[in-house]
């Protein structure tokens, strides 16, 4: 979001190289909030009318290692949110679905850390930690951390029927387009 303080309304202020005040708004991406001029620090808390949800608080490497598991675990909520987003650009209209997605991701994260998914006593989140630590070292390339990924997936899907590996799910079209739930 640019800032403008134009007293003279006839002249368009094109600003300097860093501060493109008169920039064309067609080039701005309307879905994401991009702050092109610098950092806009605003520490005002959320309005009380909006329910509070704890943030997931994961950095890029744990998120990336968790991405496919998150997609499987939180599929209905993610689809719900994206369908809502397709209907409107207004961020306030999809806050509820967004909260659900965040809560599901948090649930997954805590389940992995506390090992509730597998109910094992030892190795709480060692496998997950090793995978994302390897990713941190290898430039977030998934193909360079296959050993740790295999160990993590083996641990995650131990004694579990949800394991999609080895099955033909990629080439089968199961529910290719999420249906609108009326």
């Amino acid at each position: 979001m640019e800032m403008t303080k134009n007293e003279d309304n006839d002249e368009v202020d094109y600003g300097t190289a860093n501060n493109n005040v008169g920039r064309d708004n067609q080039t701005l991406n309307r879905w994401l909030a991009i702050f092109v001029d610098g950092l806009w620090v605003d520490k005002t808390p959320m309005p009380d009318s909006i329910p509070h949800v704890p943030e997931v608080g994961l950095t890029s490497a744990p998120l990336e290692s968790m991405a496919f598991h998150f997609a499987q675990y939180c599929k209905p909520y993610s689809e719900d949110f994206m369908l809502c987003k397709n209907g409107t650009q207004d961020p306030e209209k999809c806050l509820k679905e967004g909260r659900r997605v965040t809560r599901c991701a948090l649930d997954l994260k805590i389940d992995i850390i506390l090992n509730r998914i597998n109910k094992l006593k030892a190795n709480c989140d060692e496998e997950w930690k090793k995978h994302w630590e390897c990713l941190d070292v290898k430039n977030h390339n998934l193909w360079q951390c296959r050993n740790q990924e295999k160990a993590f997936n083996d641990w995650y899907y131990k004694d579990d029927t949800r394991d999609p590996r080895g099955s033909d799910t990629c080439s089968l079209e199961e529910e290719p387009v999420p249906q609108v739930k009326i």
Partner: protein
Amino acid sequence: MGSYTLGVQDQPPPMPQTIAYTRYFPRRGPSGAVVFLGVFATMGVGFYYVGLNNAERREIRREKAWTRISLVPLLQAETDRDVVRRLASARAKESSIMQEKHDWAAVDLKEPVKGIKRYGIYDETHQHATPVYYTDRYVAPTYLFVPRESGELLPAQWWRGSKFFTINPPYHNRADWKGKTDPINE
């Protein structure tokens, strides 16, 4: 005097009947067509492996793309909440600044305002109240007013001393850092 015999003299070799003066290159080895075929066969084998590798790289790229696609709802929800919070705060500030002017709607492009001519051009003489946008869809605000005196707008690289001399840039979050403090996480 008498007859004498010649000893063994160093004679030139006897003259052959025919002197082979023509050049002679025996036709041996693969023909040109075979050479070309060999070259193209080698290239074909090489390109086959290149194709295999490209397919593998494509799948790796697809996996990376799907990793990011899977994370979009989570990250977009976070950003949405952040945007709602920031807009609410900006709206509150702008309303408090413009308290005395009673027909001012902060951060609202659909509110009819006097002086807005066609295509959003401001013209003070145009006193018929028209909004900038007439649509029912959501319109994101393109510009936000941030007072220059408030410390809310920071240059993206606030830790640089200058824009030009960037040798040995200082690192923040270090115990022996004596420069500017991190204004976001102080």
